[in-house]
């Protein structure tokens, strides 16, 4: 697994020293809050409703166990003993004090963690397929390219004061598990017919007030030219975007305004003038990064495991294997999802004790590696099939063995009005009430794959546009109301959800979801997921059912 070398480490030290200095200047009154705010934001420090919130980057969603234990320790020492994993595969700590923040950043830097560029109008922490390096369907490890981009984008002299935030996601597998088309730049790595690695470059996706799916501006970018091409995209954006209206400053608006052809023309013209050799990483550096991501040796295992098969006699374990265990590229191994979605609990929250337990399990059974999925769950990426029963037995008493991946109770929810200053309405209690309603695991499994995504406001941190059922909190005369939409997905079948009808109050939501599910079951054809049925029938039957029963 990739580790920072002395140069990366010195950069992290310099960064936390710089922040310590800036915080001291703010506390002494030397700089104003106005001047300090962008500086703290670029180090992930927000002021939320109840306290400061620190957003810690988890680059490519990969953690070693030392890092996970350090996160647990920071949460216990400086916060209230838990953290919240987000849809951007960051960890958010909700109860941070400004005066502790420099010490926290130092403690994180010791294990190569940081909060650099997790907020602010800069190139944000870059995400990748959570199964990278483990899944059978990838052609390369996308994290090689994420690390290349991390270096290029860190403290970028030209692109640290962009019109708005800028988010990039990469996948190298056919199945898109990173929702790349909802990003400012989505990158899909493939092999060309002659075997070369090449990126499909998609630009201008995004959720929020005006959601768009990213459009392809280049089908085949030779992979080694990635950074110079991104530089061209960023330069066109930095120079051409509006700066007079904060709601119209994302790159998606520029692409929509210019039209994708004209935008592409400008990027290509800029790229032709850019000195690529100055920007693109030399092959030696790419090879160095690639070597660091080489998987450790996998002990050869029989393709099936009698221990594993025998354990399935326990129906609950059998359900766990159906929902949370996925094929690995190496026979005899599996990818194991750890659900942070116990019905009734806060989606994405993990206590320090839970983090420590997962770290112990990863050391014992998963080559010391843990992943964060944007669905706010954890992943043990390299598990021997024969070890799955032991892992399950250890997870269960800690409340970490819920067998509900991609089911109706695997709900994505942002912090919402319980924590976030931008929120219109709470998201967590809505998720809790729905999950409790469908807590019977048998019923949830009969309903099948159904993604419910909840955001507390139009900023869409809870990906409500990409939910088979999306729920958006709105403020209706000071009361919390919720708007439902259907048919969204962030995967290969990416599409934005469509609004179902008028918003409703929070207590009405579980019944409405119940009605949607019943309607689906009436209409579904063999093997159809909720999403498929909605897309086939359209919204009409669902609309009628929900609003008829509401009258």
């Amino acid at each position, binding site marked *: 697994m*990739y*580790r920072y*070398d*002395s*140069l*990366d480490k*010195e*950069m992290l030290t*310099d*960064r936390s*020293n*710089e922040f310590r200095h*800036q915080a001291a200047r703010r506390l002494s009154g030397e*700089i104003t809050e106005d*001047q300090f705010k*962008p*500086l703290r934001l670029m180090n992930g420090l927000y002021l939320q409703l109840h306290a400061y919130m620190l957003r810690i980057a988890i680059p490519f969603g990969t953690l070693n166990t030392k890092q996970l234990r350090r996160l647990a320790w920071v949460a216990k020492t400086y916060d209230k003993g838990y953290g919240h994993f987000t849809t951007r595969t960051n960890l958010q700590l909700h109860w941070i004090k400004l005066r502790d923040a420099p010490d926290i950043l130092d403690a994180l830097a010791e294990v190569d963690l940081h909060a650099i560029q997790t907020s602010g*109008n800069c190139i944000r922490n870059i995400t990748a397929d959570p199964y990278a390096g483990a899944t059978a369907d990838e052609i390369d490890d996308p994290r090689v390219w994420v690390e290349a981009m991390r*270096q*290029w*984008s*860190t*403290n*970028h*002299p*030209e*692109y*640290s*004061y*962009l*019109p708005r935030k800028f988010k990039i996601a990469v996948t190298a597998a056919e199945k898109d598990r990173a929702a790349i088309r909802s990003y400012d730049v989505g990158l899909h790595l493939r092999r060309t017919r002659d075997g070369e690695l090449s990126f499909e470059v998609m630009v201008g996706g995004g959720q929020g007030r005006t959601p768009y799916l990213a459009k392809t501006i280049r089908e085949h970018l030779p992979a080694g030219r990635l950074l110079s091409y991104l530089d061209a995209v960023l*330069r066109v954006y*930095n*120079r051409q975007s509006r*700066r007079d209206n904060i709601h119209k400053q994302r790159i998606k608006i520029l692409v929509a305004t210019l039209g994708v052809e004209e935008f592409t023309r400008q990027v290509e013209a800029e790229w032709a*003038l850019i*000195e690529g050799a*100055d*920007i693109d*990483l*030399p092959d*030696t*550096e790419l090879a*160095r990064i690639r*070597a*660091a991501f080489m998987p450790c040796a996998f002990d050869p295992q029989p393709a099936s495991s009698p221990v594993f098969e025998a354990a399935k006699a326990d129906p609950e374990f059998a359900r766990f294997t159906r929902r949370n265990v996925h094929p690995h590229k190496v026979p005899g191994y599996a990818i194991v999802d750890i659900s942070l979605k116990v019905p009734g609990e806060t989606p994405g929250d993990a206590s320090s004790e839970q983090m420590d337990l997962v770290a112990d399990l990863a050391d014992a059974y998963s080559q010391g590696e843990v992943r964060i999925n944007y669905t706010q769950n954890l992943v043990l990426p390299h598990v021997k099939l024969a070890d799955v029963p032991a892992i399950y037995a250890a997870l269960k008493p800690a409340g970490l063995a819920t067998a509900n991946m991609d089911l109706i109770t695997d709900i994505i929810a942002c912090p919402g009005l319980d924590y976030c200053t931008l929120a219109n309405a709470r998201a967590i209690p809505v998720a809790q009430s729905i999950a409790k309603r469908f807590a019977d695991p048998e019923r949830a499994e009969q309903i099948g794959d159904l993604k419910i995504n909840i955001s507390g406001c139009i900023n869409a941190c809870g990906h409500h546009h990409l939910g088979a059922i999306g729920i958006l909190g709105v403020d209706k005369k000071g009361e919390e109301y919720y708007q439902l939409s259907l048919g969204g997905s962030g995967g290969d079948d990416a599409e934005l959800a469509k609004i179902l009808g008028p918003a409703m109050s929070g207590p009405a939501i579980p019944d409405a979801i119940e009605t949607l599910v019943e309607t689906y079951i009436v209409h579904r054809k063999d093997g159809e997921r909720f999403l498929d049925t909605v897309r086939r029938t359209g919204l009409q039957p669902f609309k009628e059912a929900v609003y008829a029963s509401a009258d």
Partner: protein
Amino acid sequence: MPQLIKIEGERASTVDDLFTFVADEDAVPAAGDVIVTLARLSSEGDALLSSGRRVGVRLQPSDAVEDLAYDLGALAVIELAFAKFRDGRPYSSARVLRGRLNYQGELRAVGDVLREQALHMVRCGFNAFEPADGSTAEQWLAAAHRYRHVYQRAADDREPVFVERAQIASGLGHNRPDEVGV
């Protein structure tokens, strides 16, 4: 007389600013070095540039530096104005001026110019600064050198981390090969 911080390599100094900025609505003084807007440069540039004084131009964030290509050799100084420190367009303007138009002269940052942005400005090719926060030359230099390493090539001559790594690996760099690699 107003002061400027100038950076040359590892040195910073405070100097008097000998230029007068002339807004569009004001008349150009009879003599002395002046800095004018892009509008005035396009309408009165030829006369000004041949009047035996030094002439500079101040560009706003939305002005395209490419418009200066024709006059570049004759200009004594170019100022790029930061309307707000959050408006990052002048960084791109500076990169294009230095890297693409090959401008070698004085490049000034004026407007909402703060010490916290010194590193980015220096790296993008600015070499003269009119700080809005009262920073001294020493403070400015310290802020610009706060990082021992940089990850990208820019308009300064600092080598990025990937070059440092290659040098260390080949034994040319600092002597700590055991810490390098994965």
